[in-house]
């Protein structure tokens, strides 16, 4: 098995990791924001419900959640199960949205009340205050913790192989089964490069937001 064949096969399966990663961010970030609003709601039942949900999701292993989303519906209602990749993506989006929601909640809570009050006194609406005054300040504050989550996410995507998604580690294990071990170690390079790029991107973003305090 030549180096270039292995590389291309691993790269191909790494696209699955990248897809889970990208979709989790694109859907999980807005969902996380919505969940954070739920947990901060002054309507008690809603905030209680949301917080319990977040507690359950954060309190259980992601691997188990992936399994539950994949097998659960079939066991409960019978019939057609969700697709393997879809099941993994659903579990990832929900799981990460809960983590993101806690980061959003902390970020929003850390903005001094005076900012909101200044907006109110100037006759702004609640949504104007959120989008024009608070949001960018929140984003600036949560870039570091979000960065950590995002780095963890790219590595977590491998968990999708528990329901036989052929992501990069699964692919490398197939090579191992054929008696070739080095591709498994080679996958490390893919993750390191991905994390390296993310680090650069986050650094650039942090710098972009350094024009204010």
């Amino acid at each position, binding site marked *: 098995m030549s180096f270039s064949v292995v590389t291309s096969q691993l790269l191909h399966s790494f696209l699955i990791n990248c897809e889970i990663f990208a979709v989790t961010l694109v859907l999980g970030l807005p969902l996380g924001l919505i969940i954070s609003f739920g947990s901060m709601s002054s309507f008690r039942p809603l905030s209680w419900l949301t917080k319990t949900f977040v507690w359950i999701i954060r309190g259980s292993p992601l691997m188990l959640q992936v399994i539950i989303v994949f097998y659960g519906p079939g066991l409960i209602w019978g019939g057609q199960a969700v697709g393997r990749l879809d099941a993994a993506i659903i579990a990832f989006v929900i799981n990460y949205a809960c983590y993101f929601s806690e980061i959003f909640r902390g970020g929003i809570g850390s903005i*001094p009340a*005076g*900012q909101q*009050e*200044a*907006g*109110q*006194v*100037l*006759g*702004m*609406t609640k949504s*104007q205050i959120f989008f*024009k*005054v608070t949001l*960018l*300040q929140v984003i*600036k504050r949560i870039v570091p913790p979000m960065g950590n989550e995002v780095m963890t996410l790219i590595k977590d995507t491998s968990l999708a192989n528990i329901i036989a998604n052929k992501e990069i580690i699964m692919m490398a294990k197939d090579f191992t089964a054929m008696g070739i071990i080095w591709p498994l170690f080679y996958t490390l390079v893919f993750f390191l490069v991905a994390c390296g790029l993310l680090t650069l991107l986050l650094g650039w973003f942090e710098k972009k937001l350094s*024009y*204010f*305090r």
Partner: protein
Amino acid sequence: MSVLEVKNLKKSFGSLEVLKDIDFSLEKGETIAIIGSSGSGKTTLLRCLNFLERPNGGRLLVDGKVIFDADDPRTQKENEIRKKRLHFGLVFQSFNLFPQYTVLQNVRLASELLARERGDYRRNKRKILAQIDVEARKNLEQMGLTDKIDYYPHQLSGGQQQRVAIARALAMQPDILCFDEPTSALDPELTGEVLKVIKGLAEKRTTMVIVTHEMAFARDVADRVIFMDGGVIVEQGDPEQVLGNPKEERTKQFLARYYEQ
């Protein structure tokens, strides 16, 4: 007719009665200074005027029209309160500028957002925004900040930040401009520049309610001084009289303590 009438205003936090029957009125062009020891309810009073706190009792009248009545839910509709706030401006002790915007943007932002609600906004957008820009620059010039318009708040001194906050409040053209200890968060050498611009506003007959610990300033700019203690107005009147020759025992004690320091 008074521009503002505050009638029997009451505010409690839980069982703590912070404002008990506050009654006063304000004429157009008048400057009132409110003094009193810390915890006497001065900030709460200003916050009630600006609808940041909901009073438990009493009424607020602007130009003779009831804008808030604790006994009348029709005067407390959330969407109307936002518009009613615009009768008042508030300059905070801690400035509360928006850090991500430049000085000029800070002053323009709320006017620009409010302009979107105008019926002719889409048709005259350019003209309206240009007008807002001109007004904002004028307000900043009045505050002596023409050379700072493109700075971000963190690049300014406290005194400059507070002057931006004053320009920002003026931009909404409030009927009554409130100040909550505008110089308390400033280093002593920076209070002068802020007091000077407020004095400038008083000379232009801007209607103002100023909560302050600067007695000399109160004496200098106020048309009337109110002394508050324990959530009530103990004494009010001409600055020379209240500060120089107070009638009430509590006022005397407060001033004696003040001059001791």
